Protein backbone atom coordinates (compact mmCIF):
# COMPACT_ATOMS: atom_id res chain seq x y z
CA UNK A 1 0.00 0.00 0.00
CA UNK A 2 2.10 2.83 -1.17
CA UNK A 3 2.95 4.95 -4.10
CA UNK A 4 5.55 4.38 -6.78
CA UNK A 5 7.51 7.28 -5.40
CA UNK A 6 7.69 5.77 -1.92
CA UNK A 7 8.52 2.35 -3.33
CA UNK A 8 11.47 3.68 -5.26
CA UNK A 9 12.53 5.68 -2.20
CA UNK A 10 12.32 2.46 -0.21
CA UNK A 11 14.54 0.62 -2.64
CA UNK A 12 17.06 3.43 -2.50
CA UNK A 13 17.07 3.48 1.27
CA UNK A 14 17.46 -0.24 1.53
CA UNK A 15 20.35 -0.24 -0.91
CA UNK A 16 23.24 0.61 1.44
CA UNK A 17 22.41 -2.16 3.89
CA UNK A 18 21.76 -4.70 1.14
CA UNK A 19 24.86 -3.82 -0.87
CA UNK A 20 27.11 -3.89 2.19
CA UNK A 21 25.84 -7.25 3.34
CA UNK A 22 25.96 -8.66 -0.16
CA UNK A 23 29.58 -7.56 -0.43
CA UNK A 24 30.36 -8.87 3.03
CA UNK A 25 28.92 -12.20 2.00
CA UNK A 26 30.14 -12.55 -1.58
CA UNK A 27 33.67 -11.15 -1.61
CA UNK A 28 35.16 -13.30 1.15
CA UNK A 29 33.06 -16.27 0.08
CA UNK A 30 34.41 -16.09 -3.46
CA UNK A 31 37.95 -15.83 -2.12
CA UNK A 32 37.41 -18.77 0.20
CA UNK A 33 36.13 -20.90 -2.65
CA UNK A 34 39.08 -19.78 -4.79
CA UNK A 35 41.62 -20.74 -2.12
CA UNK A 36 39.88 -24.02 -1.44
CA UNK A 37 40.95 -25.29 -4.87
CA UNK A 38 44.60 -24.32 -4.32
CA UNK A 39 47.52 -25.66 -2.43
CA UNK A 40 48.23 -22.50 -0.54
CA UNK A 41 50.72 -22.38 2.31
CA UNK A 42 51.54 -18.75 3.11
CA UNK A 43 54.66 -19.57 5.15
CA UNK A 44 55.85 -22.51 3.07
CA UNK A 45 55.93 -21.33 -0.53
CA UNK A 46 52.65 -19.50 -0.87
CA UNK A 47 50.52 -20.33 -3.86
CA UNK A 48 51.53 -23.79 -5.11
CA UNK A 49 48.93 -24.09 -7.86
CA UNK A 50 45.55 -25.63 -8.44
CA UNK A 51 44.72 -28.95 -6.83
CA UNK A 52 41.11 -29.47 -7.77
CA UNK A 53 39.05 -31.08 -5.05
CA UNK A 54 42.10 -32.39 -3.16
CA UNK A 55 41.56 -30.10 -0.18
CA UNK A 56 37.93 -31.09 0.07
CA UNK A 57 38.78 -34.77 0.00
CA UNK A 58 41.58 -34.33 2.51
CA UNK A 59 39.48 -32.29 4.89
CA UNK A 60 36.64 -34.75 4.74
CA UNK A 61 38.88 -37.77 5.24
CA UNK A 62 40.82 -36.17 8.07
CA UNK A 63 40.18 -38.00 11.31
CA UNK A 64 39.13 -34.74 12.98
CA UNK A 65 36.34 -33.85 10.57
CA UNK A 66 33.39 -35.94 11.70
CA UNK A 67 34.20 -35.59 15.41
CA UNK A 68 34.26 -31.83 14.89
CA UNK A 69 30.85 -31.84 13.24
CA UNK A 70 29.59 -34.00 16.06
CA UNK A 71 31.07 -31.72 18.70
CA UNK A 72 29.53 -28.68 17.02
CA UNK A 73 26.08 -30.21 16.88
CA UNK A 74 26.35 -31.54 20.43
CA UNK A 75 27.26 -28.14 21.78
CA UNK A 76 24.56 -26.31 19.84
CA UNK A 77 21.92 -28.94 20.61
CA UNK A 78 22.92 -29.29 24.27
CA UNK A 79 22.92 -25.58 24.93
CA UNK A 80 19.60 -25.13 23.12
CA UNK A 81 17.96 -27.92 25.09
CA UNK A 82 19.24 -26.68 28.45
CA UNK A 83 18.45 -23.03 27.86
CA UNK A 84 14.97 -23.65 26.48
CA UNK A 85 13.92 -26.11 29.19
CA UNK A 86 15.38 -24.17 32.10
CA UNK A 87 14.41 -20.92 30.44
CA UNK A 88 10.74 -21.91 30.40
CA UNK A 89 10.86 -23.08 34.03
CA UNK A 90 12.71 -20.02 35.21
CA UNK A 91 10.47 -17.69 33.25
CA UNK A 92 7.40 -19.26 34.82
CA UNK A 93 8.91 -18.87 38.26
CA UNK A 94 9.84 -15.23 37.64
CA UNK A 95 6.32 -14.54 36.40
CA UNK A 96 4.92 -15.43 39.83
CA UNK A 97 4.24 -12.68 42.34
CA UNK A 98 7.24 -12.13 44.60
CA UNK A 99 9.24 -9.53 46.42
CA UNK A 100 12.15 -7.91 44.60
CA UNK A 101 11.25 -9.22 41.17
CA UNK A 102 13.23 -6.46 39.47
CA UNK A 103 16.42 -7.28 41.35
CA UNK A 104 16.09 -11.01 40.70
CA UNK A 105 15.61 -10.28 37.04
CA UNK A 106 18.84 -8.29 36.95
CA UNK A 107 20.70 -11.09 38.73
CA UNK A 108 19.43 -13.57 36.17
CA UNK A 109 20.24 -11.38 33.16
CA UNK A 110 23.75 -10.47 34.30
CA UNK A 111 25.68 -13.39 32.70
CA UNK A 112 24.64 -12.23 29.24
CA UNK A 113 26.74 -9.11 29.68
CA UNK A 114 29.92 -10.94 30.57
CA UNK A 115 32.21 -11.22 27.62
CA UNK A 116 32.80 -14.82 26.54
CA UNK A 117 36.53 -14.61 27.10
CA UNK A 118 35.99 -13.54 30.69
CA UNK A 119 33.35 -16.11 31.43
CA UNK A 120 35.47 -18.90 29.94
CA UNK A 121 38.51 -17.84 31.95
CA UNK A 122 36.61 -17.50 35.18
CA UNK A 123 34.87 -20.83 34.83
CA UNK A 124 37.99 -22.62 33.70
CA UNK A 125 40.25 -21.39 36.46
CA UNK A 126 38.18 -20.37 39.41
CA UNK A 127 35.48 -23.00 39.23
CA UNK A 128 36.59 -25.97 37.15
CA UNK A 129 40.25 -26.14 38.06
CA UNK A 130 40.80 -29.58 39.60
CA UNK A 131 43.15 -28.26 42.30
CA UNK A 132 42.13 -24.74 43.29
CA UNK A 133 38.72 -24.41 41.66
CA UNK A 134 35.66 -23.82 43.77
CA UNK A 135 34.10 -27.04 42.56
CA UNK A 136 37.17 -28.96 43.66
CA UNK A 137 36.87 -27.40 47.14
CA UNK A 138 33.22 -28.30 47.19
CA UNK A 139 33.82 -31.89 46.10
CA UNK A 140 36.55 -32.29 48.72
CA UNK A 141 34.30 -30.80 51.36
CA UNK A 142 31.76 -33.56 50.83
CA UNK A 143 34.51 -36.15 50.58
CA UNK A 144 34.41 -36.75 46.85
CA UNK A 145 37.29 -36.89 44.43
CA UNK A 146 37.56 -33.54 42.55
CA UNK A 147 36.82 -33.80 38.86
CA UNK A 148 39.14 -32.43 36.20
CA UNK A 149 36.18 -30.89 34.44
CA UNK A 150 37.74 -29.65 31.25
CA UNK A 151 39.72 -32.81 30.57
CA UNK A 152 37.44 -35.55 31.86
CA UNK A 153 34.07 -34.04 31.08
CA UNK A 154 35.15 -31.45 28.57
CA UNK A 155 32.13 -31.30 26.31
CA UNK A 156 29.54 -31.12 29.12
CA UNK A 157 31.70 -28.48 30.82
CA UNK A 158 31.72 -26.31 27.75
CA UNK A 159 28.00 -26.82 27.24
CA UNK A 160 27.53 -25.73 30.84
CA UNK A 161 29.61 -22.58 30.46
CA UNK A 162 27.87 -21.59 27.26
CA UNK A 163 24.43 -22.41 28.70
CA UNK A 164 25.20 -20.15 31.64
CA UNK A 165 25.86 -17.33 29.19
CA UNK A 166 22.70 -17.90 27.16
CA UNK A 167 20.19 -18.90 29.82
CA UNK A 168 19.49 -15.23 30.66
CA UNK A 169 18.60 -14.49 27.08
CA UNK A 170 16.21 -17.44 26.80
CA UNK A 171 14.65 -16.69 30.16
CA UNK A 172 14.07 -13.07 29.39
CA UNK A 173 12.43 -13.67 26.02
CA UNK A 174 10.26 -16.42 27.43
CA UNK A 175 9.36 -14.29 30.44
CA UNK A 176 8.29 -11.45 28.17
CA UNK A 177 6.18 -13.88 26.19
CA UNK A 178 4.56 -15.37 29.28
CA UNK A 179 3.72 -11.92 30.56
CA UNK A 180 1.92 -11.18 27.32
CA UNK A 181 -0.36 -14.17 27.83
CA UNK A 182 -3.87 -13.04 28.49
CA UNK A 183 -4.67 -14.24 32.00
CA UNK A 184 -8.31 -14.55 31.04
CA UNK A 185 -7.33 -17.39 28.75
CA UNK A 186 -5.87 -19.27 31.69
CA UNK A 187 -8.86 -18.48 33.83
CA UNK A 188 -11.17 -19.69 31.09
CA UNK A 189 -9.21 -22.94 30.91
CA UNK A 190 -9.41 -23.25 34.67
CA UNK A 191 -13.18 -22.75 34.51
CA UNK A 192 -13.28 -25.40 31.82
CA UNK A 193 -11.70 -27.77 34.30
CA UNK A 194 -8.14 -28.03 32.98
CA UNK A 195 -5.64 -28.96 35.71
CA UNK A 196 -2.37 -26.98 35.94
CA UNK A 197 -0.34 -29.45 33.86
CA UNK A 198 -2.91 -29.40 31.07
CA UNK A 199 -3.09 -25.62 31.23
CA UNK A 200 0.66 -25.57 30.76
CA UNK A 201 0.56 -28.01 27.87
CA UNK A 202 -2.44 -26.63 26.02
CA UNK A 203 -2.21 -22.91 26.64
CA UNK A 204 1.13 -21.70 27.98
CA UNK A 205 3.40 -23.84 25.81
CA UNK A 206 1.62 -23.10 22.50
CA UNK A 207 1.62 -19.42 23.43
CA UNK A 208 5.39 -19.64 23.87
CA UNK A 209 5.90 -21.20 20.44
CA UNK A 210 6.97 -18.00 18.76
CA UNK A 211 9.24 -17.00 21.62
CA UNK A 212 10.92 -20.41 21.62
CA UNK A 213 11.44 -20.08 17.87
CA UNK A 214 13.14 -16.76 18.38
CA UNK A 215 15.34 -18.20 21.12
CA UNK A 216 16.35 -21.14 18.96
CA UNK A 217 17.00 -18.99 15.90
CA UNK A 218 19.10 -16.35 17.58
CA UNK A 219 21.01 -18.73 19.79
CA UNK A 220 21.82 -21.03 16.88
CA UNK A 221 23.22 -18.08 14.95
CA UNK A 222 25.55 -17.29 17.79
CA UNK A 223 26.27 -20.84 18.98
CA UNK A 224 27.37 -22.15 15.59
CA UNK A 225 30.29 -19.79 15.74
CA UNK A 226 31.32 -19.94 19.39
CA UNK A 227 35.02 -19.53 19.50
CA UNK A 228 36.32 -17.72 22.55
CA UNK A 229 34.95 -20.28 24.99
CA UNK A 230 36.96 -23.06 23.32
CA UNK A 231 39.97 -20.93 22.50
CA UNK A 232 40.33 -20.01 26.16
CA UNK A 233 39.44 -23.30 27.84
CA UNK A 234 40.57 -26.41 25.98
CA UNK A 235 42.06 -25.04 22.76
CA UNK A 236 40.05 -27.69 20.99
CA UNK A 237 41.45 -30.71 22.81
CA UNK A 238 39.58 -33.46 24.68
CA UNK A 239 36.87 -33.77 22.05
CA UNK A 240 35.82 -30.13 22.10
CA UNK A 241 37.14 -29.28 18.65
CA UNK A 242 34.20 -27.74 16.86
CA UNK A 243 34.20 -27.27 13.12
CA UNK A 244 34.90 -23.59 13.67
CA UNK A 245 37.88 -24.38 15.80
CA UNK A 246 39.20 -27.09 13.46
CA UNK A 247 39.23 -24.65 10.55
CA UNK A 248 40.79 -21.99 12.72
CA UNK A 249 43.62 -24.42 13.50
CA UNK A 250 44.14 -25.36 9.86
CA UNK A 251 44.28 -21.76 8.71
CA UNK A 252 46.11 -20.00 11.52
CA UNK A 253 48.03 -22.69 13.35
CA UNK A 254 49.09 -24.96 10.50
CA UNK A 255 48.95 -22.11 7.99
CA UNK A 256 47.31 -24.36 5.38
CA UNK A 257 44.95 -21.88 3.81
CA UNK A 258 43.78 -24.17 1.01
CA UNK A 259 42.79 -26.92 3.39
CA UNK A 260 41.26 -24.49 5.85
CA UNK A 261 39.28 -22.83 3.07
CA UNK A 262 37.86 -26.16 1.99
CA UNK A 263 36.86 -26.66 5.64
CA UNK A 264 35.37 -23.18 5.58
CA UNK A 265 33.21 -24.16 2.62
CA UNK A 266 32.04 -27.22 4.55
CA UNK A 267 31.23 -25.04 7.54
CA UNK A 268 29.29 -22.71 5.29
CA UNK A 269 27.35 -25.65 3.88
CA UNK A 270 26.60 -26.95 7.38
CA UNK A 271 25.49 -23.49 8.47
CA UNK A 272 23.28 -23.24 5.41
CA UNK A 273 21.63 -26.57 6.09
CA UNK A 274 20.86 -25.40 9.60
CA UNK A 275 19.85 -22.00 8.28
CA UNK A 276 17.43 -23.32 5.67
CA UNK A 277 15.92 -25.60 8.26
CA UNK A 278 15.55 -22.74 10.72
CA UNK A 279 14.33 -20.20 8.20
CA UNK A 280 11.55 -22.54 7.23
CA UNK A 281 10.29 -22.64 10.79
CA UNK A 282 10.97 -19.02 11.52
CA UNK A 283 9.48 -17.75 8.30
CA UNK A 284 6.28 -19.47 9.26
CA UNK A 285 6.36 -18.40 12.85
CA UNK A 286 7.43 -14.80 12.32
CA UNK A 287 4.15 -13.86 10.71
CA UNK A 288 2.07 -15.02 13.62
Amino acid at each position, binding site marked *: *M*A*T*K*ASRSAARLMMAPAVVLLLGWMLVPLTMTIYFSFKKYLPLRGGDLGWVGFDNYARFLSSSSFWPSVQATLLIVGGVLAITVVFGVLLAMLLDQPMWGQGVVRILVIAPFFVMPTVSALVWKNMFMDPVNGLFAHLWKAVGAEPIAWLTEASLPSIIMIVSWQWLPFATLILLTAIQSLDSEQLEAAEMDGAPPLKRFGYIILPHLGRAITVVVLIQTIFLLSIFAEIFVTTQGSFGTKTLTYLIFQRVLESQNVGLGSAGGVYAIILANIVAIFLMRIVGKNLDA
Partner: protein
Amino acid sequence: MGRITLDKVTKSFGAVEVIPPLDLTIEDGEFAVFVGPSGCGKSTLLRLIAGLEDVSSGQIRIDSQDATAVPPAKRGLAMVFQSYALYPHMSVRKNIAFPLKMAKMDPAEITRRVEAAASVLNLTDYLDRRPGQLSGGQRQRVAIGRSIVREPAAFLFDEPLSNLDAALRVGMRLEISELHKRLATTMIYVTHDQVEAMTMADKIVVLQAGVIEQVGSPLELYRTPRNKFVAGFIGSPTMNFIEGPEAAKYNAHTVGIRPEHIDVSETEGPWSGVVGVSEHLGSDTFFHIHETGLAETITVRAGGEVGFNHGDRIHLTPREDVMHRFDAEGLRIE
Protein backbone atom coordinates in the same frame (compact mmCIF):
# COMPACT_ATOMS: atom_id res chain seq x y z
CA MET B 1 -10.12 27.12 -4.21
CA GLY B 2 -10.66 23.40 -4.32
CA ARG B 3 -12.42 21.86 -7.25
CA ILE B 4 -11.44 18.22 -7.50
CA THR B 5 -11.98 16.23 -10.66
CA LEU B 6 -11.41 12.53 -11.13
CA ASP B 7 -11.18 11.55 -14.76
CA LYS B 8 -11.40 7.83 -15.65
CA VAL B 9 -9.49 6.99 -12.50
CA THR B 10 -8.80 3.31 -11.85
CA LYS B 11 -6.92 1.49 -9.13
CA SER B 12 -5.71 -2.08 -9.10
CA PHE B 13 -3.78 -3.93 -6.42
CA GLY B 14 -1.97 -6.54 -8.44
CA ALA B 15 -4.59 -8.28 -10.54
CA VAL B 16 -7.47 -7.08 -8.40
CA GLU B 17 -9.22 -4.03 -9.76
CA VAL B 18 -10.67 -2.27 -6.72
CA ILE B 19 -11.79 0.80 -8.61
CA PRO B 20 -12.98 0.43 -12.21
CA PRO B 21 -12.89 3.59 -14.36
CA LEU B 22 -14.53 6.32 -12.34
CA ASP B 23 -15.45 9.94 -13.09
CA LEU B 24 -16.38 12.39 -10.39
CA THR B 25 -16.29 16.11 -9.84
CA ILE B 26 -16.41 17.77 -6.45
CA GLU B 27 -17.13 21.47 -6.73
CA ASP B 28 -15.26 24.13 -4.81
CA GLY B 29 -16.70 24.57 -1.35
CA GLU B 30 -18.78 21.44 -1.51
CA PHE B 31 -19.14 18.98 1.37
CA ALA B 32 -18.94 15.62 -0.37
CA VAL B 33 -19.44 12.38 1.50
CA PHE B 34 -18.27 9.03 0.17
CA VAL B 35 -20.45 6.40 1.71
CA GLY B 36 -20.71 2.67 1.25
CA PRO B 37 -20.29 -0.62 3.06
CA SER B 38 -16.81 -1.56 4.24
CA GLY B 39 -14.57 -2.66 1.41
CA CYS B 40 -16.43 -0.61 -1.17
CA GLY B 41 -13.30 1.35 -2.09
CA LYS B 42 -14.29 4.64 -0.48
CA SER B 43 -11.13 4.91 1.61
CA THR B 44 -8.99 3.90 -1.35
CA LEU B 45 -10.62 6.63 -3.38
CA LEU B 46 -9.82 9.16 -0.67
CA ARG B 47 -6.21 7.96 -0.51
CA LEU B 48 -5.96 8.34 -4.29
CA ILE B 49 -7.12 11.93 -4.00
CA ALA B 50 -4.67 12.48 -1.13
CA GLY B 51 -1.82 11.01 -3.15
CA LEU B 52 -1.09 8.33 -0.57
CA GLU B 53 -1.74 5.79 -3.33
CA ASP B 54 -0.99 6.02 -7.04
CA VAL B 55 -3.83 5.79 -9.53
CA SER B 56 -3.39 2.88 -11.93
CA SER B 57 -4.70 5.01 -14.78
CA GLY B 58 -6.70 8.17 -15.27
CA GLN B 59 -6.18 11.69 -14.02
CA ILE B 60 -6.83 13.62 -10.83
CA ARG B 61 -7.16 17.38 -11.21
CA ILE B 62 -7.18 19.86 -8.39
CA ASP B 63 -8.39 23.26 -9.60
CA SER B 64 -7.83 22.13 -13.20
CA GLN B 65 -4.15 21.39 -12.46
CA ASP B 66 -3.13 17.81 -13.16
CA ALA B 67 -2.19 16.46 -9.73
CA THR B 68 -1.94 12.79 -10.67
CA ALA B 69 1.83 12.61 -10.21
CA VAL B 70 2.13 15.24 -7.50
CA PRO B 71 3.30 13.84 -4.14
CA PRO B 72 0.83 14.19 -1.24
CA ALA B 73 2.88 16.92 0.40
CA LYS B 74 2.50 19.17 -2.62
CA ARG B 75 -1.20 18.74 -3.35
CA GLY B 76 -2.29 21.35 -0.86
CA LEU B 77 -4.78 19.02 0.78
CA ALA B 78 -5.16 18.27 4.47
CA MET B 79 -6.30 14.99 5.90
CA VAL B 80 -7.86 13.89 9.17
CA PHE B 81 -7.25 10.21 9.80
CA GLN B 82 -9.43 7.65 11.49
CA SER B 83 -6.87 7.17 14.26
CA TYR B 84 -6.24 10.96 14.24
CA ALA B 85 -2.55 10.12 13.60
CA LEU B 86 -1.35 12.74 16.06
CA TYR B 87 2.38 12.88 16.71
CA PRO B 88 2.57 11.42 20.21
CA HIS B 89 5.94 12.95 21.02
CA MET B 90 4.84 16.52 20.28
CA SER B 91 2.65 18.83 22.31
CA VAL B 92 -0.70 19.90 20.90
CA ARG B 93 0.90 23.19 19.90
CA LYS B 94 3.68 21.44 17.99
CA ASN B 95 1.24 19.04 16.39
CA ILE B 96 -0.82 21.88 15.01
CA ALA B 97 2.28 23.82 14.01
CA PHE B 98 3.90 20.87 12.24
CA PRO B 99 2.50 21.46 8.73
CA LEU B 100 3.40 25.15 8.99
CA LYS B 101 6.89 24.30 10.15
CA MET B 102 7.26 21.94 7.19
CA ALA B 103 6.17 24.82 4.95
CA LYS B 104 9.00 26.86 6.50
CA MET B 105 6.60 29.55 7.63
CA ASP B 106 7.74 32.48 9.72
CA PRO B 107 7.64 31.50 13.46
CA ALA B 108 5.55 34.52 14.45
CA GLU B 109 2.99 33.66 11.81
CA ILE B 110 3.00 30.03 12.98
CA THR B 111 2.24 31.10 16.55
CA ARG B 112 -0.53 33.39 15.38
CA ARG B 113 -2.19 30.73 13.29
CA VAL B 114 -1.85 27.97 15.88
CA GLU B 115 -3.43 30.17 18.51
CA ALA B 116 -6.23 31.20 16.20
CA ALA B 117 -6.97 27.57 15.36
CA ALA B 118 -6.81 26.59 19.02
CA SER B 119 -9.30 29.23 20.05
CA VAL B 120 -11.71 28.19 17.30
CA LEU B 121 -11.48 24.57 18.43
CA ASN B 122 -11.49 25.25 22.20
CA LEU B 123 -8.00 23.87 22.57
CA THR B 124 -6.29 26.93 24.02
CA ASP B 125 -6.01 25.38 27.49
CA TYR B 126 -4.52 22.20 26.13
CA LEU B 127 -1.83 23.58 23.85
CA ASP B 128 1.03 22.35 26.00
CA ARG B 129 -0.32 18.88 26.64
CA ARG B 130 0.64 15.77 24.78
CA PRO B 131 -1.97 13.91 22.69
CA GLY B 132 -1.81 11.03 25.16
CA GLN B 133 -3.26 13.28 27.86
CA LEU B 134 -6.32 14.24 25.82
CA SER B 135 -9.74 12.66 25.47
CA GLY B 136 -10.92 11.22 22.17
CA GLY B 137 -12.91 14.31 21.26
CA GLN B 138 -10.01 16.61 22.06
CA ARG B 139 -7.65 14.52 19.96
CA GLN B 140 -10.11 14.74 17.13
CA ARG B 141 -10.08 18.53 17.46
CA VAL B 142 -6.29 18.60 17.42
CA ALA B 143 -6.33 16.57 14.21
CA ILE B 144 -8.75 19.05 12.72
CA GLY B 145 -6.68 21.95 13.99
CA ARG B 146 -3.60 20.52 12.37
CA SER B 147 -5.45 20.39 9.07
CA ILE B 148 -7.04 23.83 9.14
CA VAL B 149 -3.95 25.90 9.90
CA ARG B 150 -2.53 25.32 6.45
CA GLU B 151 -5.63 26.69 4.78
CA PRO B 152 -5.69 23.77 2.37
CA ALA B 153 -7.55 23.61 -0.93
CA ALA B 154 -9.64 20.79 0.48
CA PHE B 155 -10.02 18.71 3.63
CA LEU B 156 -10.09 14.95 3.49
CA PHE B 157 -11.70 13.09 6.36
CA ASP B 158 -11.25 9.32 6.66
CA GLU B 159 -13.98 8.00 8.98
CA PRO B 160 -13.00 10.60 11.56
CA LEU B 161 -15.76 9.86 14.04
CA SER B 162 -15.64 6.09 14.13
CA ASN B 163 -13.44 5.98 17.24
CA LEU B 164 -15.71 8.23 19.29
CA ASP B 165 -18.62 7.16 21.45
CA ALA B 166 -22.14 7.82 20.22
CA ALA B 167 -22.81 11.05 22.12
CA LEU B 168 -19.51 12.64 21.11
CA ARG B 169 -20.05 11.59 17.55
CA VAL B 170 -23.21 13.66 17.27
CA GLY B 171 -21.43 16.67 18.76
CA MET B 172 -18.41 16.41 16.49
CA ARG B 173 -20.69 15.96 13.50
CA LEU B 174 -22.20 19.33 14.22
CA GLU B 175 -18.81 20.91 14.80
CA ILE B 176 -17.49 19.66 11.48
CA SER B 177 -20.61 20.89 9.70
CA GLU B 178 -20.25 24.29 11.32
CA LEU B 179 -16.58 24.39 10.42
CA HIS B 180 -17.54 23.75 6.83
CA LYS B 181 -20.09 26.53 6.85
CA ARG B 182 -17.54 28.94 8.26
CA LEU B 183 -14.56 28.01 6.09
CA ALA B 184 -16.52 27.22 2.95
CA THR B 185 -13.66 24.99 1.85
CA THR B 186 -14.14 21.78 -0.08
CA MET B 187 -14.44 18.79 2.24
CA ILE B 188 -14.42 15.15 1.29
CA TYR B 189 -15.63 12.90 4.02
CA VAL B 190 -15.53 9.11 4.04
CA THR B 191 -17.89 7.13 6.22
CA HIS B 192 -19.83 3.90 6.31
CA ASP B 193 -22.54 5.54 8.38
CA GLN B 194 -25.40 6.75 6.21
CA VAL B 195 -26.67 8.98 9.04
CA GLU B 196 -23.41 10.96 8.92
CA ALA B 197 -23.73 11.14 5.16
CA MET B 198 -27.32 12.35 5.26
CA THR B 199 -26.78 14.92 7.98
CA MET B 200 -23.58 16.49 6.75
CA ALA B 201 -23.33 16.22 2.99
CA ASP B 202 -24.08 18.65 0.22
CA LYS B 203 -23.35 15.79 -2.11
CA ILE B 204 -23.36 12.10 -1.31
CA VAL B 205 -21.40 9.64 -3.40
CA VAL B 206 -22.66 6.11 -2.81
CA LEU B 207 -20.06 3.49 -3.63
CA GLN B 208 -20.22 -0.23 -3.94
CA ALA B 209 -17.32 -2.42 -5.09
CA GLY B 210 -15.45 0.62 -6.37
CA VAL B 211 -18.35 1.71 -8.53
CA ILE B 212 -20.33 4.90 -7.99
CA GLU B 213 -23.94 3.83 -7.57
CA GLN B 214 -25.35 7.33 -7.35
CA VAL B 215 -24.30 10.91 -6.75
CA GLY B 216 -26.67 13.48 -5.41
CA SER B 217 -27.92 15.57 -2.55
CA PRO B 218 -29.18 13.70 0.52
CA LEU B 219 -32.80 14.32 -0.37
CA GLU B 220 -32.33 13.32 -3.99
CA LEU B 221 -30.92 10.03 -2.83
CA TYR B 222 -33.70 9.58 -0.34
CA ARG B 223 -36.46 10.43 -2.77
CA THR B 224 -35.20 8.97 -5.99
CA PRO B 225 -32.66 6.25 -5.37
CA ARG B 226 -31.33 5.13 -8.70
CA ASN B 227 -31.30 1.46 -7.76
CA LYS B 228 -32.10 -1.02 -5.01
CA PHE B 229 -28.64 -0.75 -3.48
CA VAL B 230 -28.90 2.98 -2.89
CA ALA B 231 -32.50 2.62 -1.81
CA GLY B 232 -31.50 0.06 0.78
CA PHE B 233 -28.41 1.91 1.93
CA ILE B 234 -29.88 5.37 2.45
CA GLY B 235 -32.53 5.79 5.10
CA SER B 236 -32.96 4.23 8.50
CA PRO B 237 -34.53 1.82 9.21
CA THR B 238 -33.88 0.40 5.76
CA MET B 239 -36.43 0.29 3.02
CA ASN B 240 -38.72 -2.75 2.76
CA PHE B 241 -38.45 -4.64 -0.51
CA ILE B 242 -41.32 -6.71 -1.80
CA GLU B 243 -41.12 -9.03 -4.77
CA GLY B 244 -43.53 -11.37 -6.50
CA PRO B 245 -47.24 -10.90 -7.24
CA GLU B 246 -47.58 -7.87 -5.01
CA ALA B 247 -44.78 -6.11 -6.95
CA ALA B 248 -46.29 -7.22 -10.24
CA LYS B 249 -49.42 -5.30 -9.34
CA TYR B 250 -47.31 -2.17 -9.67
CA ASN B 251 -45.67 -3.36 -12.90
CA ALA B 252 -42.33 -3.87 -11.18
CA HIS B 253 -40.01 -6.71 -10.29
CA THR B 254 -39.50 -5.27 -6.85
CA VAL B 255 -41.22 -2.49 -5.01
CA GLY B 256 -39.62 -0.63 -2.16
CA ILE B 257 -41.45 1.16 0.59
CA ARG B 258 -39.82 3.00 3.45
CA PRO B 259 -40.96 2.13 7.00
CA GLU B 260 -42.09 5.71 7.51
CA HIS B 261 -44.34 5.45 4.45
CA ILE B 262 -46.56 2.70 5.79
CA ASP B 263 -49.60 3.47 7.90
CA VAL B 264 -50.72 1.02 10.55
CA SER B 265 -54.23 0.22 11.65
CA GLU B 266 -55.85 -2.36 13.90
CA THR B 267 -58.71 -2.87 11.51
CA GLU B 268 -58.08 -2.07 7.92
CA GLY B 269 -55.43 -2.00 5.21
CA PRO B 270 -54.45 -4.01 2.14
CA TRP B 271 -51.63 -5.81 3.91
CA SER B 272 -51.69 -7.56 7.23
CA GLY B 273 -49.22 -9.29 9.50
CA VAL B 274 -48.26 -10.24 13.02
CA VAL B 275 -46.26 -7.91 15.24
CA GLY B 276 -42.89 -9.27 16.25
CA VAL B 277 -40.37 -7.09 18.05
CA SER B 278 -41.30 -3.47 18.75
CA GLU B 279 -38.51 -0.93 19.25
CA HIS B 280 -39.70 2.06 21.24
CA LEU B 281 -37.57 5.13 20.69
CA GLY B 282 -39.97 7.46 22.42
CA SER B 283 -40.55 9.74 19.45
CA ASP B 284 -41.13 6.79 17.14
CA THR B 285 -41.80 3.12 17.37
CA PHE B 286 -40.44 0.59 14.91
CA PHE B 287 -42.54 -2.50 14.44
CA HIS B 288 -41.17 -5.60 12.81
CA ILE B 289 -44.10 -7.31 11.16
CA HIS B 290 -44.04 -10.98 10.20
CA GLU B 291 -46.38 -13.33 8.30
CA THR B 292 -47.37 -10.71 5.76
CA GLY B 293 -46.90 -13.06 2.83
CA LEU B 294 -44.89 -10.28 1.16
CA ALA B 295 -41.46 -10.43 2.66
CA GLU B 296 -39.94 -12.11 5.66
CA THR B 297 -40.21 -8.97 7.71
CA ILE B 298 -41.78 -5.62 7.04
CA THR B 299 -40.50 -2.79 9.16
CA VAL B 300 -42.92 -0.04 9.97
CA ARG B 301 -42.31 3.26 11.61
CA ALA B 302 -45.20 4.63 13.66
CA GLY B 303 -45.66 7.37 16.20
CA GLY B 304 -44.20 6.97 19.65
CA GLU B 305 -47.60 6.59 21.22
CA VAL B 306 -48.75 3.76 19.00
CA GLY B 307 -48.74 0.53 20.97
CA PHE B 308 -49.25 -2.97 19.72
CA ASN B 309 -48.36 -6.14 21.52
CA HIS B 310 -46.19 -8.95 20.39
CA GLY B 311 -48.41 -11.33 18.44
CA ASP B 312 -51.12 -8.82 17.53
CA ARG B 313 -52.37 -9.07 13.97
CA ILE B 314 -52.47 -5.63 12.40
CA HIS B 315 -53.11 -4.04 9.05
CA LEU B 316 -50.79 -1.94 6.89
CA THR B 317 -51.40 0.64 4.21
CA PRO B 318 -48.45 1.65 2.02
CA ARG B 319 -48.48 5.17 0.61
CA GLU B 320 -48.40 4.42 -3.04
CA ASP B 321 -47.22 7.89 -4.11
CA VAL B 322 -43.87 7.36 -2.41
CA MET B 323 -43.40 3.77 -3.38
CA HIS B 324 -40.25 2.92 -5.36
CA ARG B 325 -40.33 0.51 -8.27
CA PHE B 326 -37.34 -1.48 -9.52
CA ASP B 327 -36.85 -3.76 -12.49
CA ALA B 328 -35.24 -7.20 -12.47
CA GLU B 329 -31.75 -5.61 -12.60
CA GLY B 330 -32.60 -3.55 -9.54
CA LEU B 331 -32.76 -0.28 -11.50
CA ARG B 332 -35.37 2.32 -10.73
CA ILE B 333 -38.46 2.47 -12.90
CA GLU B 334 -39.81 5.98 -13.27
